[in-house]
C-alpha cells in the first residue's frame, strides 16, 4: 500500500501533486494579472533589481576596463621600449621627443615625432606621422583648445591640425594628448630613436586588497538596494496576504504559499534583469562623460564573463531572499487571518560582540601595520582593516533593531503626531530599521573612508608653504635670487631663451646657460655650462671673467687638453681643445631641487667665446628665472612661453602644496556615492510609508471624522519618514567619525575631521527626508477623505 | 373578518361571481386549504348586509353562484382603512400581511406604505419590549427576547418583501 493510497484527503490515486515549479509559475501568473498593486510592486521590484544589476554589471566591468586601460597604455609605450644601444637611423626608425606638459594641473601627453625614413612605426591611433609643424590632437585637447579662456594654451599649439588621435591611441576619451611633427628632433637633442611602439602591459593591480575593496564597494552598494527591494516587495502586501490566504483555503500548504509568493516576484525580477541590462548598455556612454583622469571608453566597460554571470544569478537570488525574509513572521492561515508572529525582543549582547570584533580587528591590523611585523608591501594590514570596518559597520546595524525597539516602542513622550509616528515605525517592523541600517552602512562607511582619505589627502597634499610668496622665497637660489628653472632640450634657433622668458609678465630677471657633457682623456665625465660672463658670475664666485675664459678645477684639466664634448649621452662627440683654465672658490650655484653640491672640481664653466660647444651641437639650455608670484597668470604664462620655445622643455616652479587631484576626485566620488545610496534608501522609505499609509486609510478616515487636524496627521507622516533618516544620519555620522578617528589614532596619524563632507552628507540626508515626506503626503491626504469610511 | 376585506379587495379589481371569487382566493391566498363554499357565501352575505358589496347582475338560473357581486364605495373605503391599519404585531402574522400586500398591489394601491406602517408598529412594540427588558430581571429579559426575536423575524420579512415589491407586483398583475 503506497502512502498515497492512505492519504486521508486523497481524492484519488491519480491526483496530481503540485510541483514547486508549477507553484512558482502560478505566482508569476498572479503577479501578471493581479491588478494595479501587484503590477506596481513588480515595477518597483524591477527598478530595484534593475539598479542593482546595472550597478553590479558596472562593477563587473571594472576588471575589463582596467585591462583595456593597461593594454592601451602598453600599446603606445615608446621611450620605455627604445632599443639600447641606439640603433642607426633607417627606413623604419622614428625619433620621438617627450613633450608631455601640464595644463591647469592636468597632464597633457605629448610627443614630438620625426620619421627617419619611409616606413616609420606608427603610434596607435595614428595613420601617418605628421609632417614638420603639423599637429595631431586628441578630441579632448581639440575641444579644450576650442573652448574660451585657453588663449595661452592655444598659442603653444599654433600649428596646423592635420588629424585626430584615434581611441586606440588614447588612455581614455578625456585624455589630453598631441603628436607634433618636428624636423629639428635629433638624437643629439631630445630625440629618442625607436623602431616600434608597444610593450608588455604591466601587471594590473589585482591583489586581495583590490578584491576586498571591491567587496566593500559591492556590499555598500547593495545595501540600499536591499532596503529598497524590502520596501518594494512589501508593496500591496495586505492584498497579497489575502490572496495567499485564499490559496491556503484551497489547500496550499505553507511551503507552497511561500513558493507562490516567490513566484509573484519573478516577473518583477525578470523585468528588472532586462531593465538592468538595458540601463547598463544605455548608460555605458555616460561613462565617457565622467572626466576623472583620462576617463573610460564605453567599450571598455564590458562585464567580465564570470562576474557578469554571477550578477545575473546573484541578483534574483538576492531579491528572492528579500521576499522570503519579508514573509518571515507572517503566518498565512486559510481563513485569511494573517498573524504576525511576535518578534522576539532583540537581545543586545551578541550584536555588540560583532561591533567589538570589528573594533579589535581594526586595532590589530593597525598595530601590525605600524609595527610592520607582517612585512607585507603597501600596508599588509589593509585587508584586516577592511574586514574590521565591515564587521564594525554591520555590528552597528546589528545593534540597531535593539536601539530602534528601545526608541520607538517604548517612547511615550512628545506630541501626539510624534507618538503616532513612533508607534507606526515600531509596527512597521523591519522597514524603517532596514532603512536606518542602510544609511548607517553606506553613509558611515563613506565617512569612515573619508576620514582615511582625509589623511591620505593630507599626505598627498604636502604643505610646503602657506603662501606662494613664501614658497618662492624659500626656493631662492644664487645671488640673483632665482626661484624658477626651465630646462630646454631642444633650444630654439634664435638662441635667446632668457630674453623671451623675460618678456613674460611677472618675470623680473632671467639668465640662460647651455650645458654639454665632456669626457676627459681618462674618461671622467663632467658637465660644461656655457654662458657669458654676466651669467657665469651668477653661477659661481668667479675671480674675474672676460670673453674666452674657462673656469674649472678638475684635476688634470688644463690648457691644451682635449675634452670630448657631446650634447647628451649617446650623441656624437666632438673634440674641444681647452684654452687656459682658472679655478673658482666655493660651490656652484644650483637649483635647490637638483643641487648635487658641484664645485669647481667637478664642473666646467665656459664663456661662449671659448667655443666649448661647436655650433652644430644643439646644446641643452637652462633658464633661471626670478618672478613675482603675486602677478596673476605668471606661472601659466611662463609655462606656455617655455613650452612654445621648446615642447620638450621642463619647468620647475616652487609650489605651496602638492595636491593629488585623483584624491579629491575620490572624495567627491565618495560623497556622490553616499548621496546616491541615500536617495535609493529614501525611495525605499517612501514606498514603505506610502504602502503603510494606504493600509491605514480606514484609520485615517476615522481620525479625520474625529476632527483630527490635517496638520497632526501630516506631522505624524513627516516624523515617520524623518525619524529613521535622522536617526540613521546621526548614527552614521557618529559611527563613521568614531571609526575614522579610531583608524587614524591607531595608525598613529593626526586625527583629522572632515566637517564639510560630513555636513554635506548630513544636510543631504535631511533634504532627502524632506523630499521623502513630500512624496508620501499626497497619498496621506488621499486617505483622509471620508470615502475611506465607507465599508468595503 | 380579514376574509371579508380580502373579498372586497378582490372585487375591487373586477366584479365577479361568488364561485370565481372563491377560485381567485384559493389561487392566491389559501395555500393547501381551499375555502368552503359555505364560508364564501356567508361572508358575501355579511358584506351585502353591511352594504359593502352589491349584486350587479343575476344570470339565468337560480342559486347564489349565479350572482355577480361588485364592491360599493363604502366597501372600497373599508379596504382602504384596513390596509392602512397596522396589524397588531404578533407571531405568524405573515398571512394577513401578505394578503394585504397582494390586495394593495391588485387594487393599485401603494403596497410599501403598508409595510412602512407595519414596521413602525413593530418597532414601537420592540422599543417597549426593549424598555421592559432593560428594566427587568433575567426571566423578563428572556421572555422579552423571545418576542423581540419573533418581531425581528417579521421585520426581516417586511424588509425582504419591501425589496421584492416590484417583482411581486409583476407576478400578481400578470395573472
Amino acid at each position, binding site marked *: 500500500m503506497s502512502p498515497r493510497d492512505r492519504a486521508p484527503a486523497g481524492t484519488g490515486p491519480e491526483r496530481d501533486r503540485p510541483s514547486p515549479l508549477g507553484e512558482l509559475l502560478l505566482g508569476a501568473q498572479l503577479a501578471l494579472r493581479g491588478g494595479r498593486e501587484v503590477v506596481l510592486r513588480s515595477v518597483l521590484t524591477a527598478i530595484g533589481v534593475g539598479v542593482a544589476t546595472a550597478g553590479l554589471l558596472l562593477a563587473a566591468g571594472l576588471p575589463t576596463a582596467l585591462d583595456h586601460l593597461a593594454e592601451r597604455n602598453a600599446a603606445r609605450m615608446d621611450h620605455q621600449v627604445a632599443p639600447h644601444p641606439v640603433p642607426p637611423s633607417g627606413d623604419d626608425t622614428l625619433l620621438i621627443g617627450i613633450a608631455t606638459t601640464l595644463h591647469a594641473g592636468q597632464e597633457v601627453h605629448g610627443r614630438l615625432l620625426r620619421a627617419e625614413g619611409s616606413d616609420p612605426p606608427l603610434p596607435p591611433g595614428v595613420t601617418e606621422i605628421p609632417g614638420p609643424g603639423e599637429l595631431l590632437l586628441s578630441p579632448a585637447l581639440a575641444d579644450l583648445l576650442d573652448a574660451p579662456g585657453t588663449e595661452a594654451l592655444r598659442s603653444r599649439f599654433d600649428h596646423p591640425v592635420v588629424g585626430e588621435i584615434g581611441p586606440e591611441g588614447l588612455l581614455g576619451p578625456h585624455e589630453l594628448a598631441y603628436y607634433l611633427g618636428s624636423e629639428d628632433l635629433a638624437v643629439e637633442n631630445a630625440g629618442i630613436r625607436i623602431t616600434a611602439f608597444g610593450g608588455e602591459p604591466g601587471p594590473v593591480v589585482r591583489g586581495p586588497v583590490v578584491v576586498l575593496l571591491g567587496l566593500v564597494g559591492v556590499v555598500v552598494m547593495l545595501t540600499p538596494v536591499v532596503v529598497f527591494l524590502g520596501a518594494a516587495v512589501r508593496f500591496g502586501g495586505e492584498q497579497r496576504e489575502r490572496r495567499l490566504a485564499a490559496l491556503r483555503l484551497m489547500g496550499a500548504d505553507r511551503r507552497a504559499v511561500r513558493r507562490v509568493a516567490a513566484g509573484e516576484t519573478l516577473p518583477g525580477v525578470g523585468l528588472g534583469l532586462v531593465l538592468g541590462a538595458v540601463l547598463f548598455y544605455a548608460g555605458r556612454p555616460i561613462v565617457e562623460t565622467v572626466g576623472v583622469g583620462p576617463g573610460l571608453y564605453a567599450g571598455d566597460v564590458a562585464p567580465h564573463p564570470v562576474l557578469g554571470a554571477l550578477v545575473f544569478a546573484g541578483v534574483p537570488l538576492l531579491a528572492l531572499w528579500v521576499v522570503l525574509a519579508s514573509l518571515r513572521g507572517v503566518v498565512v492561515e486559510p481563513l485569511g487571518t494573517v498573524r504576525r508572529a511576535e518578534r522576539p525582543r532583540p537581545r543586545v549582547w551578541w550584536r555588540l560582540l560583532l561591533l567589538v570584533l570589528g573594533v579589535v580587528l581594526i586595532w590589530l591590523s593597525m598595530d601590525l601595520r605600524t609595527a610592520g611585523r607582517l612585512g607585507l608591501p603597501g600596508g599588509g594590514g589593509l585587508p584586516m582593516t577592511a574586514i574590521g570596518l565591515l564587521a564594525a559597520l554591520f555590528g552597528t546595524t546589528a545593534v540597531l533593531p535593539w536601539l530602534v525597539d528601545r526608541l520607538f516602542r517604548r517612547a511615550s513622550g512628545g506630541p501626539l503626531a510624534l507618538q503616532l509616528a513612533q508607534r507606526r515605525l515600531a509596527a512597521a517592523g523591519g522597514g524603517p530599521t532596514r532603512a536606518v541600517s542602510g544609511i548607517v552602512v553606506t553613509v558611515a562607511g563613506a565617512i569612515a573612508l573619508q576620514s582615511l582619505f582625509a589623511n591620505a589627502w593630507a599626505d598627498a597634499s604636502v604643505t610646503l608653504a602657506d603662501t606662494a610668496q613664501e614658497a618662492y622665497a624659500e626656493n631662492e637660489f644664487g645671488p640673483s635670487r632665482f626661484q624658477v628653472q626651465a630646462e630646454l632640450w631642444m633650444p630654439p634657433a634664435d638662441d635667446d631663451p632668457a630674453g623671451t622668458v623675460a618678456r613674460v609678465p611677472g618675470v623680473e630677471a632671467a639668465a640662460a646657460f647651455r650645458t654639454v657633457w665632456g669626457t676627459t682623456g681618462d674618461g671622467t665625465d663632467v658637465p660644461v655650462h656655457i654662458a657669458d660672463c654676466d651669467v657665469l658670475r651668477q653661477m659661481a664666485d668667479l675671480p674675474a671673467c672676460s670673453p674666452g675664459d674657462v673656469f674649472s678645477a678638475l684635476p688634470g684639466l688644463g690648457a691644451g687638453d682635449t675634452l670630448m664634448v657631446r650634447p647628451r649621452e649617446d650623441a656624437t662627440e666632438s673634440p674641444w681643445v681647452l684654452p687656459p683654465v682658472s679655478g673658482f672658490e666655493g660651490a656652484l650655484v644650483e637649483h635647490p631641487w637638483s643641487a648635487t653640491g658641484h664645485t669647481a672640481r667637478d664642473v666646467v664653466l665656459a664663456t661662449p667665446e671659448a667655443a666649448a660647444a661647436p655650433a652644430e651641437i644643439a646644446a641643452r639650455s637652462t633658464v633661471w628665472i626670478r618672478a613675482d608670484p603675486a602677478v596673476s597668470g605668471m606661472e601659466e604664462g611662463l609655462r606656455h612661453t617655455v613650452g612654445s620655445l621648446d615642447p620638450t622643455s621642463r619647468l620647475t616652479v616652487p609650489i605651496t602644496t602638492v595636491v593629488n587631484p585623483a584624491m579629491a576626485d575620490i572624495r567627491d566620488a565618495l560623497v556622490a556615492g553616499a548621496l546616491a545610496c541615500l536617495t535609493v534608501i529614501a525611495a525605499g522609505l517612501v514606498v514603505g510609508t506610502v504602502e503603510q499609509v494606504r493600509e491605514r486609510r480606514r484609520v485615517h478616515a476615522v481620525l479625520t471624522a474625529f476632527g483630527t487636524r490635517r496638520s497632526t496627521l501630516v506631522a505624524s507622516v513627516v516624523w515617520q519618514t524623518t525619524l529613521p533618516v535622522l536617526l540613521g544620519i546621526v548614527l552614521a555620522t557618529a559611527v563613521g567619525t568614531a571609526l575614522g578617528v579610531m583608524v587614524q589614532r591607531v595608525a598613529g596619524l593626526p586625527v583629522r575631521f572632515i566637517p564639510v563632507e560630513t555636513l554635506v552628507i548630513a544636510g543631504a540626508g535631511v533634504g532627502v527626508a524632506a523630499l521623502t515626506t513630500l512624496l508620501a503626503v499626497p497619498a496621506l491626504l488621499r486617505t483622509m477623505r471620508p470615502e475611506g469610511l465607507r*465599508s468595503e | 373578518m380579514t376574509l371579508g376585506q380580502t373579498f372586497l379587495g378582490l372585487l375591487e379589481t373586477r366584479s365577479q361571481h361568488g364561485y370565481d371569487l372563491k377560485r381567485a382566493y384559493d389561487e392566491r391566498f389559501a395555500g393547501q386549504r381551499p375555502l368552503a363554499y359555505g364560508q364564501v357565501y356567508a361572508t358575501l352575505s355579511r358584506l351585502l348586509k353591511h352594504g359593502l358589496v352589491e349584486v350587479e347582475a343575476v344570470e339565468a338560473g337560480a342559486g347564489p353562484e349565479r350572482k355577480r357581486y361588485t364592491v360599493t364605495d363604502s366597501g372600497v373605503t373599508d379596504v382602504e382603512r384596513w390596509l392602512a391599519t397596522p396589524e397588531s404585531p404578533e407571531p405568524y402574522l405573515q398571512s394577513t400581511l401578505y394578503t394585504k400586500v397582494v390586495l394593495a398591489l391588485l387594487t393599485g394601491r401603494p403596497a410599501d406604505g403598508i409595510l412602512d406602517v407595519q414596521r413602525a408598529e413593530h418597532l414601537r412594540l*420592540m422599543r417597549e419590549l426593549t424598555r421592559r427588558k432593560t428594566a427587568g430581571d433575567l426571566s423578563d429579559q428572556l421572555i422579552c427576547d423571545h418576542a423581540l426575536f419573533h418581531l425581528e423575524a417579521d421585520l426581516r420579512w417586511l424588509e425582504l418583501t419591501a425589496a421584492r415589491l416590484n417583482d411581486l407586483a409583476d407576478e400578481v398583475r400578470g395573472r
Partner: protein
Amino acid sequence: MRRPAPRALSDRLPEAPGTPLLTGSGLRKSFGLTQALEDASLDLYPGEVVAVMGPSGSGKSTLLHCLAGVVRPDAGTIEYDGQDLVAASDTRLSALRRSEFGFLFQFGQLVPELSCLENVALPLRLGGRPRRRAEHAAAEWLDRLDVGELAHKTPGECSGGQGQRVAVARALITRPRVVFADEPTGALDSLNGERVIRMLTEAARESGAAVVVVTHEARVAAYADREVVCRDGRTLDTGGPG
C-alpha cells in the same frame, strides 16, 4: 378593531421637543454616478436617540456622514445649534467634530498601534488636553464600560465586542452633544451587539448626548427613541401610507 395610524415622534420623547439640535433637510449627495442621497431630512432633538434604518445602499450612512459634517452634501441644508454646517469651513467642521460630536463605527476605528487607553484618550489629546490628564479620563471611561483591564492592550488583542466598547468610551470621552454611530453592532453577534448598543444608549442618556445610530438591525433600533427609514436615498415619513 381600527386604530388610528401611529404618528412618528408621537409616543416617546422625554420632554417637549422644543427646537431641534441638528436639522438636515433636502439633502442630496452623489458619489460619481451613484446617487447616495436624493432627498433626505432628519431632525435631531437634544438628548434623543434616533435610529436610521433601511436596506444597504439606501444612503443611511451617507446621511449620517452629512449630518456629522464629514461629507459635504451637494444640496440641502444642515443646521447644528444655529450654525450652518454646509457652509462651514473644514477647520470649523473639524473643530466641531473634535469637541461636540462623538463617533462610533462598525470596525477598524481604533488606531492599531496605540493601546486601548491611548485610543480612548485620543479625542481629548486632539482637543489639546495634556497627555496625562487625557489618559486619566480615558481610564475612568474604560472602567465605566467594563473594559478597564484592556487599558494597556492593543486593539489587535481585543475581541470585537471589547473593541467596540473601547470605541464607545472613545466616542463619549469628550462629552459630546451628539454621538454618530454607523452600524456599531454590525460586526458583532447579537449578545455582544446588544451589550454595545445598550451601553452606548445608556451612557449617552446619562450624559445627555443625542445619538444618531445607523443600523439595519431592528433589535438595535429598538434601543432608540424613534426611527427614521431610508430608502433609495430618501427618508420616509413613517406616519403612514399616503
